C-alpha cells in the first residue's frame, strides 16, 4: 500500500495517472480496496441496473397504457414486474446508497479508508455476482421444459406460490439465491460502516460531532444488520422446502403461508427505511449548504432518525391488514404505524426550520431537494391513510399502494439520489455537471413523475389491483392508465438528460476545485477528486462543521454546540 501512495504523491494528488493499457486499468479497478473506487463502482453498477429496471417499467406501462393490450403476454409481464421490483430494491437502491456511504463516510470523518477494506471489496463483488445471477435466470431459469425463465412470483414472493407445486423449474431459486447474495454484500458493508464510524474518526470528532450523514449511515447499517437476516433466514427455509422436501411454507403439510408474510415484512418494512434514511441523510447535507444555514436541531434530527429506525421494526404487519388478523392485532399495528409518522414529521419540520431565514440558492441539488420535501410529505400522508387499517382493506394491493410507495421510492429516494449525484459529482470527478442540462433533467423528470404517480392513486380508488397484466375496458380505468403511461416518456427524457450531462461534463465540464458549493464538511477539505489516501495529513476537528470554523474564525461553531 505504502508504495502506491508514494507513487501517487509523485504524480500529484490523484490526477491523471500515467496512462496504463486498458487491461491494466481494468485490473486496477478489479483488485482495488479503495473505498472511493468501490463506492463509485457500487453507484455506477446501481445506475446501470436502474436503466434496466426502468426499461422493464416502461414495458409494463406500455402494456397497461390501454385496456386489454396484447403487447406483453401474461407470463412475461409477471416476470417483468418481479424483476422490476427486485432489481429496483436490491440492485439499484441498495448499491447506490451503499456506494454513497462507502464514498463519503471515510471522507467525512477524516480517515483514509473503511475499517475493513478487503471485506468492502468482498461485499461489492458478492453483490455484483448476486445481481448477475438474477439476470442469468433469463437464460438458466428454465430447469424444466416450459417451466419459465426469470422469476415471476413478485418481489415479495408470497408462499405457497413459490413452492415446488406452483413454481416449477428454477426461476424462484434464482430469485432466492441472488437476493440472498446481495444481502450478504449489504451485511458486510453495514458492519464496515459502523466499525469505521466507531473506530476510525479523526482527532476531535466525538460521536456528537459526526456529520449527520454519518450518523444516519450508522443507523441504517444497524437496521441492515437486524432486518436483512429475517429475509435471508426465510429464504433458506424456502430453499429447504424446494430442495430438501421441508414443509416450512407447504400449506398441504400443515405449513403456514402467513409465516412467510411475517418474515418477509419483518424485513420488508425496515427495508423501506433502510432506503429512505440515506435520502434523508443527503437532504441533511444538501439543504443546509444551499440555504447557507446550519442544520436546525442536529440532536433532534439524529434522535428522530434513530426513533424511526426503532419504531419501524414493529410496524411490519401493516402490510398484512387484509390477512385476517384479530381486531387487537390490527389495532396494535395501526398504533405503531401512526406513531412512526411523528419522528418523520419532526424531520420535515427541521428541514423547514433550516431553510427558514436562510439565503436559498436554487442550484440543481437544491431543486431536487425541495421537490423531495413536498413529495415526501405527500408520501407520508398517503402512508397515514394506508395505516388506517379499514381504509387499507380497500387500498392494499391496489394502484394506490403502488403510487404511495413510488412516492417514497421515486419521489423521495430517487429525487435525493439525483440531488446527491449533482452535489457530489464534482468531488468524485473534479468536474461540475452542467446547471442548464440539470434543470432540463429536473423539470422533465418532475413533470413525468407527477403524470405517472399522481394518477396512479386514482386507479387504485377506482378498483384497479396491482400486478395485473391487463384490465378490461369499460371499468373507468382507460384515461387514468393512459396518462400514467404518458408520464414515462417524460421521465425517460429526464434521465436521458442526466446521462448526456454526465458524459459531456466528464469530457468538458468546468473544473470544480476542492469546494465548489462553499460547504462545511470534511470531504470538501481535500482535492477533487480526492487522492487515494484522502487527506495528506489526517485532519483535526473541533465542531460539526470544520470548514465553517475555517472560513469564519471570528465566529466558529464550537461556541454554540
Amino acid at each position, binding site marked *: 500500500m505504502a508504495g502506491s501512495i508514494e507513487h501517487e504523491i509523485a504524480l500529484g494528488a490523484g490526477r491523471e495517472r500515467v496512462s496504463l493499457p486498458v487491461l491494466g486499468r481494468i485490473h486496477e479497478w478489479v483488485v482495488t480496496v479503495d473505498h472511493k473506487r468501490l463506492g463509485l463502482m457500487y453507484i455506477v453498477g446501481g445506475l446501470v441496473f436502474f436503466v434496466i429496471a426502468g426499461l422493464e417499467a416502461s414495458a409494463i406501462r406500455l402494456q397497461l397504457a390501454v385496456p386489454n393490450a396484447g403487447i406483453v403476454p401474461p407470463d412475461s409481464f409477471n416476470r417483468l414486474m418481479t424483476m422490476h421490483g427486485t432489481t429496483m430494491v436490491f440492485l439499484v437502491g441498495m448499491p447506490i446508497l451503499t456506494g454513497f456511504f462507502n464514498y463519503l463516510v471515510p471522507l467525512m470523518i477524516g480517515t483514509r479508508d473503511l*475499517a*475493513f477494506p478487503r471485506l468492502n471489496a468482498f461485499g461489492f463483488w458478492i453483490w455484483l455476482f448476486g445481481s448477475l445471477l438474477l439476470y442469468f435466470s433469463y437464460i438458466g431459469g428454465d430447469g424444466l421444459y416450459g417451466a419459465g425463465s426469470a422469476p415471476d412470483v413478485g418481489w415479495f414472493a408470497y408462499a405457497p406460490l413459490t413452492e415446488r407445486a406452483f413454481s416449477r423449474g428454477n426461476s424462484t431459486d434464482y430469485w432466492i439465491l441472488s437476493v440472498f447474495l446481495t444481502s450478504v454484500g449489504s*451485511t458486510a458493508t*453495514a*458492519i*464496515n460502516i*459502523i*466499525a*469505521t464510524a*466507531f*473506530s*476510525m*474518526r479523526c*482527532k*476531535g470528532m466525538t460521536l456528537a460531532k459526526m456529520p449527520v450523514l454519518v450518523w444516519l449511515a450508522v443507523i441504517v447499517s*444497524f437496521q441492515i*444488520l*437486524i*432486518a*436483512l*437476516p*429475517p429475509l*435471508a*433466514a*426465510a429464504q*433458506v*427455509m424456502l430453499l*429447504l422446502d424446494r430442495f*430438501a*422436501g*421441508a*414443509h*416450512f411454507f407447504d400449506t398441504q*403439510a*400443515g*405449513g*403456514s403461508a402467513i*409465516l412467510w408474510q411475517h*418474515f418477509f415484512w*419483518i424485513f420488508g418494512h425496515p427495508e423501506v427505511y433502510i432506503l429512505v434514511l440515506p435520502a434523508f441523510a443527503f437532504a441533511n447535507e444538501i439543504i443546509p449548504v444551499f440555504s447557507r444555514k446550519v442544520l436546525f436541531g442536529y440532536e433532534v434530527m439524529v434522535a428522530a432518525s434513530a426513533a424511526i429506525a426503532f419504531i419501524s421494526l414493529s410496524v411490519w404487519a401493516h402490510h398484512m391488514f387484509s390477512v385476517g388478523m384479530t381486531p387487537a392485532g390490527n389495532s396494535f399495528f395501526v398504533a405503531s404505524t401512526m406513531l412512526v409518522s411523528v419522528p418523520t414529521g419532526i424531520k420535515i419540520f427541521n428541514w423547514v426550520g433550516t431553510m427558514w431565514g436562510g439565503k436559498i440558492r436554487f442550484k440543481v441539488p437544491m431543486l431536487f431537494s425541495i421537490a423531495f420535501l413536498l413529495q415526501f410529505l405527500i408520501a407520508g400522508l398517503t402512508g397515514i391513510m394506508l395505516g388506517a387499517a379499514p381504509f387499507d382493506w380497500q387500498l392494499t394491493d391496489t394502484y394506490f399502494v403502488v403510487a404511495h410507495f413510488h412516492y417514497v421510492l421515486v419521489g423521495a429516494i430517487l429525487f435525493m439520489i439525483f440531488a446527491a449525484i449533482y452535489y457530489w459529482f464534482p468531488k468524485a470527478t473534479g468536474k461540475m455537471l452542467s446547471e442548464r442540462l440539470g434543470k432540463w433533467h429536473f423539470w422533465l423528470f418532475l413533470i413525468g413523475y407527477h403524470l405517472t404517480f399522481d394518477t396512479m392513486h386514482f386507479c387504485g380508488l377506482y378498483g384497479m389491483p396491482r400486478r395485473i397484466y391487463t384490465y378490461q375496458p369499460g371499468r373507468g380505468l382507460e384515461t387514468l392508465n393512459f396518462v400514467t403511461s404518458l408520464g414515462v416518456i417524460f421521465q425517460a427524457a429526464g434521465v436521458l438528460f442526466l446521462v448526456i450531462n454526465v458524459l459531456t461534463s466528464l469530457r468538458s465540464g468546468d473544473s470544480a476545485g476542492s469546494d465548489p458549493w462553499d460547504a462545511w464538511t*470534511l470531504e470538501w*477539505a481535500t482535492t477533487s477528486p480526492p487522492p487515494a489516501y484522502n487527506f*495528506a*495529513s*489526517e*485532519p*483535526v*476537528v*473541533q*465542531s460539526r462543521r*470544520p*470548514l465553517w*470554523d*475555517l472560513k469564519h*474564525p471570528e465566529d*466558529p461553531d464550537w461556541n454554540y454546540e
Partner: protein
Amino acid sequence: MAASPIIASDSRTEWAKTLPYKGRVGIYLLILTESSFFSIFVVAYLFYVGKSLTPPFPRDVLSPPIVNTICLLSSSVTIFLAVRALRSGSIGGFLLWWVVTLALGLEFLIGTAFEWHKLIYHDGLTISTNLFGTTYYSLVGLHALHVTVGLTLIFLVTILTLLGHMEGRHVERVDVLSWYWHFVDAVWIVVFTTVYIIGR
C-alpha cells in the same frame, strides 16, 4: 490547510486509543446480525411446535443431549482460559487450552451426528417427514453449521500455533475468534431450551 481548525496532529495515536478496536466492533456486529438470523429459525420452531400432522413427535424420539451440552458449554471456559494465557504471554498454555477447546467442540459435533443417525435410521425422522423434522433439522443443523465454521477456524489457529506463528501481539485477533465461539455456545443454550425443553 494551514489554518488552525484542520491541522496535522502529533497526538493522533493518543486519540486513536480512545476509540474501540475495530475487530471487536466488527465481531459484535456480526453477532448482532447472526442473532437476528437465528431468532427467525427459533420463531419458526416455536410456531410449529405441536402442529405436525404425522408422527414421530418430539416427545417420543428426543432426549436431551446432556453430555454434548456440558462439553460445548465448558469449551467456552477453556477458550477463555486460552485467550488469558496468550494475553499473559504463555504460548504453551494457550496451545493447551486451545486444543482442549477443539476437542470439546469436536465431541459436540460427533454427538450430534450420533443423535441424527438414531433419529433418521431408528425413528424414521427426516427433514421431509413432518413439520417437527423440518424445523428440528434446520434449527439444530444451522447451529451445527456454525459449530463447524468455528471449529474450522480454531483448527486453523491450532495449525498456525503449531507452526510457531502465534505471538502475544495476536491476542486481539484470537480474542475476536473467541467471541464468535462464545456466541455459538450462547445460541446452543437458546436452541437447547427451544428444542429439548419447550418443544418437547
